[in-house]
């Protein structure tokens, strides 16, 4: 049987099984729809609390009533799979101070609520389906809290879903213990692993009491959980999908939809504005007390807004019933309508498409693979002197560099600024500078060891960004850091310092190679590899021959000399650029903070880093083995730089806390 035929039959069988599984829920849902004209309810609501005051207070936490409303987990997953969200994903939305696409907002939102950009149920009985973040965003918007038309009660699809991320292990344990679980319970172990809470658990009195008290460290941990709930609760008001509306409708002036005329609106706000303006437009023109409106040119935008608002409301109803066809229809309507509301304010198609690619590629972080394989190839080239390895390594290094550059340029395009405004951006920039300089040196001097060091640094950086996303709290594209927007000097200062950090990382690679050759390179084989790495093919060939007449140390010394020259070249440039960066920072600090040098921890450690290289330059005068001392100081300087770059930010407080 041909492969394609087998795959087709398998897919058909899976579809049939899925349909069989979903059918009871769908038919029940359809039956419920015919009865209550809106929202399906899988189970009856629990009995109301006998105490009227307590019941009133629980109204504020919707999860205590009708918690199991909505679709069954299987039907929910089938509904999610049935929808095509690619068009909606590319719609623009205003959030976090900038216009972005829905896909970006969804990823940020889901990350904030659940700690991941894709969610799947933690209940072993539920289908193991990783939900699209856009689907989850809309599902949270429509399903978190709504009034069931049948009962008039607040309902929620999320009351018992394990969605609220609890980052701290200690707090997670305390919460589960407060909920009455013991450490031997399976439920305890399961939720400790899931690392998430249900909203019902979050609102239980013991958990609320627990989250209220504690020291500063505890409050930081508790605030993360409270923040996750607040984000979840604010899902629907977050969707500012409509560009600012005109102050006109049907040819007459109407009150603006918002105090700020530039503010984007939610489609619920648009609906409210339409209702208000309807009342205005329907007033009797002969009424002396009526608001005077001035006829102006006909605007199509407002009528499009009417249609978009209606589509939004219809989408909400269709979504809650799980009607995939009706939902898709309304989604497609919105995809067609919203970009036309204000084409001037709406971002163009190219930009939105670029943002989708940027998100889907995880910001081109997969370039780590090109770097890593390239570095290995260049190492092999150094060892075997095979042209194919050198060519492939150079090519892959170039590919990695291009992807790295694509990350930076796309981010620049999306944010409208050079991306060095937070830890993520500066980290990517540091690595890029290191790889760029390493690649240039490699190609200019034909010394593959620069490429190995550059590829290693680039691969480590992008792997870090790719596999440990939570390390960087600011991965999202955000507005200008206000402090950076105050001066071009500050921009130059940051870039120069980051460039110098990149060079320090590169020098670290060279110094490490030096140390390896120094301590392990007494064998000819190792020395030959290193010699080829620095481009000395003649020496490499000589060393690789079993020439008993030539002492092995002859070639090794020469090799160490070349490595020393290479590390010194990079370190000198790093030293000067770091000094330049520090002085530019001092210039700006004098201007902005009124003091050129305040011994802020970041300043202090930048100076200490500089001093390490100052020592490296001066220590060479007074020692016999200059290269070895320089190499050790190069390694030391790298770790001091790492502490300055990361440790100071994470562990010490100071004026550079944003850096």
């Amino acid at each position, binding site marked *: 049987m041909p492969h394609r035929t087998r795959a087709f039959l398998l897919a058909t069988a899976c579809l049939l099984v899925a349909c069989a599984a979903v059918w009871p829920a769908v038919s029940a849902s359809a039956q419920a729809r015919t009865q209550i004209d809106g929202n399906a309810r899988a189970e009856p609501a629990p009995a109301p609390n006998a105490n009227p005051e307590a019941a009133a207070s629980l109204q504020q936490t919707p999860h205590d009533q009708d918690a199991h409303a909505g679709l069954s987990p299987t039907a929910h997953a089938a509904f999610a799979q049935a929808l095509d969200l690619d068009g909606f994903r590319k719609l623009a939305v205003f959030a976090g101070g900038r216009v972005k696409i829905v896909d970006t907002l969804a990823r940020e939102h889901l990350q904030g609520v659940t700690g991941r950009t894709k969610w799947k149920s933690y209940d072993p009985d539920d289908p193991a389906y990783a939900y699209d973040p856009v689907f989850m965003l809309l599902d949270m918007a429509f399903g978190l809290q709504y009034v069931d038309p049948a009962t008039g009660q607040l309902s929620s699809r999320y009351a018992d879903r394990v969605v609220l991320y609890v980052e701290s292990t200690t707090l997670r344990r305390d919460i589960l213990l407060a909920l009455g679980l013991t450490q031997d319970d399976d439920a305890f172990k399961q939720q400790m692993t899931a690392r998430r809470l249900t909203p019902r658990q979050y609102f239980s009195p013991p958990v609320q009491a627990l989250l209220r008290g504690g020291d500063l460290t505890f409050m930081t941990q508790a605030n993360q959980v409270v923040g996750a709930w607040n984000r979840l609760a604010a899902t629907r008001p977050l969707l500012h999908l409509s560009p600012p509306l005109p102050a006109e409708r049907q040819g007459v002036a109407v009150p603006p939809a918002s105090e700020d005329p530039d503010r*984007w609106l939610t489609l619920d706000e648009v609906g409210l504005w339409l209702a208000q303006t309807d009342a205005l437009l329907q007033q009797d023109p002969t009424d002396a007390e009526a608001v005077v409106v001035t006829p102006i040119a006909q605007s199509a935008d407002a009528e499009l807004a009417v249609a978009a608002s209606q589509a939004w409301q219809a989408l909400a109803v269709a979504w809650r019933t799980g009607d995939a066809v009706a939902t898709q229809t309304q989604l497609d309507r919105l995809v067609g309508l919203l970009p036309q509301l204000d084409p001037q304010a709406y971002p163009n198609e190219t930009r939105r498409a670029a943002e989708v690619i940027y998100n889907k590629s995880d910001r081109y972080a997969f370039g780590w693979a090109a770097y890593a394989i390239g570095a290995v190839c260049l190492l092999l080239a150094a060892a075997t002197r095979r042209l194919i390895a050198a060519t492939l390594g150079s090519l892959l290094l170039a590919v990695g560099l291009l992807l790295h550059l694509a990350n930076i340029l796309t981010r620049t395009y999306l944010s409208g600024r050079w991306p060095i405004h937070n830890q993520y951006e500066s980290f990517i920039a540091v690595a890029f500078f290191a790889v760029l300089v390493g690649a240039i040196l490699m190609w200019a001097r034909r010394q593959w060891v620069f490429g190995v060091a550059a590829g290693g640094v680039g691969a480590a950086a992008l792997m870090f960004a790719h596999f440990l996303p939570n390390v960087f709290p600011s991965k999202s594209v955000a*507005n200008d850091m206000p402090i950076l927007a105050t001066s071009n000097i500050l921009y130059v200062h940051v870039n120069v310092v980051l460039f110098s950090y990149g060079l320090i990382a590169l020098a670290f690679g060279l110094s490490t190679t030096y140390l390896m050759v120094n301590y392990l390179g007494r064998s000819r084989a190792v020395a030959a590899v290193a010699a080829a790495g620095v481009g000395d093919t003649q020496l490499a060939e000589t060393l690789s021959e079993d020439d008993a007449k030539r002492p092995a140390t002859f070639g090794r010394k020469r090799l160490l000399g070349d490595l020393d020259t290479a590390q010194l070249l990079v370190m000198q440039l790093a030293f000067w650029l770091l000094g330049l960066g520090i002085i530019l920072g*001092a210039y700006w600090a004098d201007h902005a903070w*009124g*003091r050129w040098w*305040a011994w802020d921890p970041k300043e202090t450690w930048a100076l200490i880093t500089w001093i390490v290289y100052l020592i490296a330059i001066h220590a060479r005068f007074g020692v016999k083995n200059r290269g070895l001392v320089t190499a050790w100081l190069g390694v030391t300087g790298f770790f001091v730089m790492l502490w300055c770059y990361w440790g100071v930010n994470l562990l010490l*407080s100071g004026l550079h806390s944003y850096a």
Partner: protein
Amino acid sequence: MSEKYKRVKQADLALPAPLRWLTRAFSSIRMAVVLLTLVALYGLVASVPLPLIAAGASYLLIGAGWIAVAAVFWWALARAVIPDAPPSAKATGYAIAGVGAVSAAVFTSIGFHQNVLTAQPWWTTYRATTFYRLPGIEMTELEFYSAWPMKLLLALFVCNMVWATVRRIAFNLPNLGVLTVHTGIVVTAVGSIAYSSLKLEGDMLLPRADLDPTGQQGFRRYVYDRNDPALYVSVDGAPAGVQMFPLAGKLPRYNDYTPDQLAIPISEERGFKQSFGDQLRVTIEGFYSYAHAEMELDLVSASQQDAYQPGDGAPGLVVAIGPKSGPAPQRKHALRAARPDEQGFIEDGLLVEMPLQVPPRRQAELLAELPRGGPLTGLVVQGPEASTPPATQPTPQAPATPPATTPEPWVSPAIPGDALVAQTPNGPLRIRVLSIGDYPFPFSTPGYERAQDVCALLHISDDRGYEAIRFAMHRFPELGQDFVYDPESPAATPEPPDFAAIEPGPLPQRLAALQGLQRKDADPRFRIALLDDRLLQYRLAPLDPQLTRFALFMRGRGLPAMNQPIAFSDNHAQRQLPLGSTEDGAPWLHLVKAVPDAVPVMRPVPVDKENRKPREEGTHLHAVLPVAVQRVNPATGETLFSQKVHLRHYLYADDYRLPSSLVSPHVDVPGVGRVNLTFSRVRYPLDFFVRLTDFEREVFPGSDDARDFIASLQVVERQPGQRTLAAPVELTARMNNPAHFNPNAFAWPFYLGSAKLSQNQWDPGDPALAPAEKSRRDPQGRLVNQQRWSVVGVSNNIAIHVIAAGLTLVLLGIPWAFYVKPWMMKRQSRNAAARKTPSANAPAPQEPKDPDKPRTPAAPAPTPQPEPATV
């Protein structure tokens, strides 16, 4: 080694011993390396908290240990196990050992950190403690960097650098780079000395000119120093006015000091006696570095001399709530039996009271039982006092008993909406429960002013036609009130109200029903007390004047009401009482101390170290000064008057809302007058006036995220040599973009350079205000409830241009030394070779060895073209 240095070294070696050592040491580069290393270590100690340094040292030791293990493994592998193994096998062994050592070091360090370091109490307590915060040092970060060890290191380094430059480096064009760098460092050092000696930084609080309540149109001229504290003293009527006594270098910053550890006699400061006479003594007797905003009420014996607030003594008890074991919790409550509003407190569902005595009717109420499983609120109704014979007081041997002949009080559960009929000695009383809640009004009865209570709002009526709305109290039944219809009352409605129409509901909404009714004391025929067993209640009535025994009345939360005598130990040592549960970790009531003649004193409560905001530690923002104010006989030294006050820190000594007024506690000293004291920062007068004419918070379009803060300022100074004012100068200070002002006559301390005026802080408005109210604007479009003031930083910038010149020299010299000099040296050698050997076939001359640069970056060797298949 340069030729110059060879010559100089020979001359140095001929010098006598001490001189020879000195000049050799200061010519040495090793000394520079050592000094730079010490500077780096100084920075490490100054910037990294001590626990982190300890952790770092631990990780290094762990890493070194594992590397040593790996080294042994390597050695054994290479020498003993596989001496003849092929290199690839050895390399694999080396790699495994290396990766294993690194992994083991990482995992051991993580385990050590999580299981050992963070488990230590000091890790949490001192996690933000840097070296300069230790007791005995107590400096700011800047002060520590300006301390003598750092100055000494930098001075030695500069001397070393200058001497080594003069002795070792030839003064020629190729060496211009290194000479420029070293000159730049010296220039920077000289500039920094002037800069740090004369630098002044401070700030001023400016009200927006249109909102200035003082009539000064917003003009201010005082700047408060950024760091240095000061104590302000004035005596009403004294001609000296307000005197400032700087405390920089005298007052601690980070640690607490008790009176036996600290005594700063302010009255011994220069100018004090001339200003306030020789009878007044002011002494700072301790220091609380970081205390809660609210002080704690404590009790001391009235006979003690150190009483902060003299007064009449009364029986008092200090209690605390916390786990049974360990020391008493820090947060305590002081109860005094003398006044009802000092008798008790309610906290987290617990009521603790110390009544002076419990009369029989009150005993009957406190011991009245509500049915189990029913509502936790109820009513007790009793007849007039005369109908109740006295009850026995409890003794250690026997609990109190209700009077045998007491008519049984009527007791019933009660919740809003209930309609009840109480049987009383005066006949049946019909009761409708309208509401139960916190008593909504402040008490005005003397002694009860600050008390809080829960009340029931009742509609009562009897067979004699008496009808009223009754407030029945829980803690203070004696304060019950009736609201009755009195046609004679001026506020009375023409028609009597329909009491029966008042529906039960929340208390605040029911208060409208009282309109038109006349308030009067509760009808004494019916004493009604509310039982609120939602609270766990402990009442401790003293049984003897020495407070060694108490009658303990307990009830609440469904527990049976009971009373029993308890004995406080003879020495008043701490005693604990369980609060419902005796499980591990359950809270207990700690009886901390009993004072028979207690007077209340307010004491600061230090904030636990782990709950302090690191950036606010050491700023004095949360500091409290215990200060003793005394009047003494200067001839005999006898103390004629003594009182202590606690001074909180004020950022600004003068209240910007009140012209020329200090925010100050005061002490009335007989024979001296009212002494005002303010703990604030050192204040400098400016020779010009500044005012805030407008303030704007700029946001990103379409969002509420702040982008900039803009203060519009107006600066006015006097005409040079005249008393008239010059024309005002308009300036704009933005966040991180200050305004500059060059005054005509800049008096001390800003006697050099220009002043920078920077936007530091702004008024975000009261967070409790509703958003609409917060963003309310006046007819001119100005915000009324926010952005009403700004804190403007003021600083000078002496010798900054000298520093800038020095740093520029450093920047220019480095590329010369790194790149121009090698190029010049190569060019020189090429020229020399060309002159010496014109023949092209002659071997290339050796590059002259440069003593100042060990190895110049070699020109890239001509790379042979790779063979087709190899590199």
